[in-house]
């Protein structure tokens, strides 16, 4: 059973992902900001983080950098409605980049690939 950390400022996205991936058999913690995410990661171990880029308080890319400095072992999937960030080299330290879609299969498959079924 893998522990997933979802970081997205959209309430419904957090609920969707939590419900979906819980059903998939993962333990899911969903937070709304980078600050909350770092606090959560400091307190417990996660197997993978799914991080949105357009957050309210801080840019997801800043959060990505912080996580890589403090928790380099934690794989991070960037998950954004914007596909344009793919060409931004700041995103290249992430382990994967999945564009948001109503079809959650690509995200699900990537998670399975990275943490195992």
């Amino acid at each position, binding site marked *: 059973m893998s522990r997933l950390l979802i970081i997205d400022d*959209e309430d*419904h*996205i957090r609920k*969707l992902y939590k*419900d*979906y991936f819980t*059903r998939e058999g993962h333990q899911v913690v969903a937070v709304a900001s980078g600050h909350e995410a770092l606090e959560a990661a400091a307190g417990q171990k996660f197997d993978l983080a799914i991080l949105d880029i357009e957050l309210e308080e801080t840019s997801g890319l800043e959060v990505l950098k912080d996580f890589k400095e403090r928790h380099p072992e934690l794989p991070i999937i960037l998950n954004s*409605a*914007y*596909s*344009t960030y793919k060409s931004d080299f700041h995103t290249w330290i992430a382990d994967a980049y999945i*564009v*948001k*879609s*109503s*079809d*959650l299969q690509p995200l699900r498959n990537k998670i399975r690939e990275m943490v195992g079924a």
Partner: protein
Amino acid sequence: MLEHATMTPAGRTVALLRAQFDDSPLGVFLADSHGFIEYLNSSAAAVIGFDRIEEGYGSSLYDIESAMNCGLADAFGYILDGSIFQKKEYGCTNRHGHYAILNLICSPYREESGEIIGVLGIMQDVTDSSKRKAELEEAIFELSIMSQVSEALSSTADLEEVLKIILTGVTANQGLGFNRAFLFLVNESGDQLEGKIAIGPGSPEEAGQIWARLSKQQKTLKELLDDYSERENQSNYSLTSSIAGWKIPLSETSIFSEALSSGAGINVDAHQELSEKSVEILQRLSTSNLAIAPIVGKGKNLGIIVADNRITGKKISVSDVELLQTFANHTSVAIERSRLYDNLAAHAAELEVINRQLAESQEQIIRVEKMSVIGELTSSIAHELRNPLTVIGGFANLMITSGGNESCAEYLNIILSETKRTENVLHQVLDFSRASRTKTQEIDFNQLVTRTAELLPSKLKHRSKPPLIKVDNQPLAVWGNPDQLQHALLQFMLVASEELTDDCRLELSTCLNENAVRSIIGFIAAEDSRPKVIKVLKQIFGNNTGTQKLSVIVAGETIRYHGGNYGIEGAQDELPRIFIELPQYKGGYNEPTSDN
């Protein structure tokens, strides 16, 4: 006094005249009623040609007349009858054979009783002043010609008109009065003279006709020069054919090159020692005597005026050549001005073309900039829509996989399907907006079509035969955003391919049609597939944009924003073709400022 009292009447007269006129600059003489000189002063003696006054005393007027031939002898009788005889500025010769111009007045000389006893004559040698007067008149005449010609020359900047006016001035009777005139101009590289235009009769018969006609008109030089119809009368310029296309290298020694190098007019006679080239020139012009005047402007040789009197055979004088040279000096300004005008007109035309191109490119840049703004706006909107769509579709999926009654599953499937469809639309719009950020630039259209065609197979949902590609041999360039144009072309190709049956194949070609670059998407289809192809194409590319696919609308607007056009074409009985047209790029655009 006593001496006076003892004098004879004649003696008293002579004494009186001596006292009055001995020192007079006017020549004064007195002849008696028989015509014998009783008195003359030194001035009169000089005019008549006596070495000493005494030689004149007792001379007969008839003897003097035979030498001077001034009509005095014939008039003598009339004078004695009381008439006055006078001649003004009369040319005659004195006893020594010297030519002089005289003013002569002779009147009856009366004694105290009133009886005419002789003839008193007054002679004035006006040779010098007459000569000066003649020179002045000549100068006035020359100035008048120059003034009239200058006025006519200033009325036009057209080189051909200028040359015709010049030659009319040279040959008109009211002008310089030569029979024929030829005009040669130095070419641009300055190494040869080229025959341009000639005026004058080709034969004595023709001369008679032309001069008779002109004589009847009785026009002044100005009127003649202003007479447009006379200038345009082509029969006046039939002589031009004798020099048109004639090129004389200035490196060869000839009378023409000598005139140019000396910068002064020359009088050429066939009897002079002439170079071979000079002889050739005279032979070609069929003349034995001509005047050549170089036309020089600002130190630069412009050409020469050549004139002769071949018809009348009148010898060309030094003054004729001087006058022709003065005339040539006047005309250099007009020739330079007309050349400058031609250069300016050519530059103005070039600037107009460039200005038009700039205006077109400016419009295009504005259009493309608008496209970029639209692209950014749509990108922002599309991304904002993604999150809600993810939620809608994601929960619908969850509900479906959660189980539940069949009707809920059906509704949820519909929600999911429409969500996916909306996401596809977003993909198309986002692809377009991504393309908007690329710089506009010159694009090789053949390469663009080929590259786009290569993308096609990977984009098609079903297997289809790869398209046949036939690009034009010549390079075809367009200006625009290459990503946007590739996107647009790909959309057209995709739409055309996806709706067709497997046995159809696309044929892509490019060509140049006037100033437009064209891409044609043609179809190779079996006979029984044709109706479907026609129906599908007309549906997709129909005029009603409300029924057109979004991708076709977006692609079509991209083409239009690039100044192009698209549609379907083809005869009634053949498969329609999709055409995409863009303005051909010929260079001269500046790059816009926006980029990624």
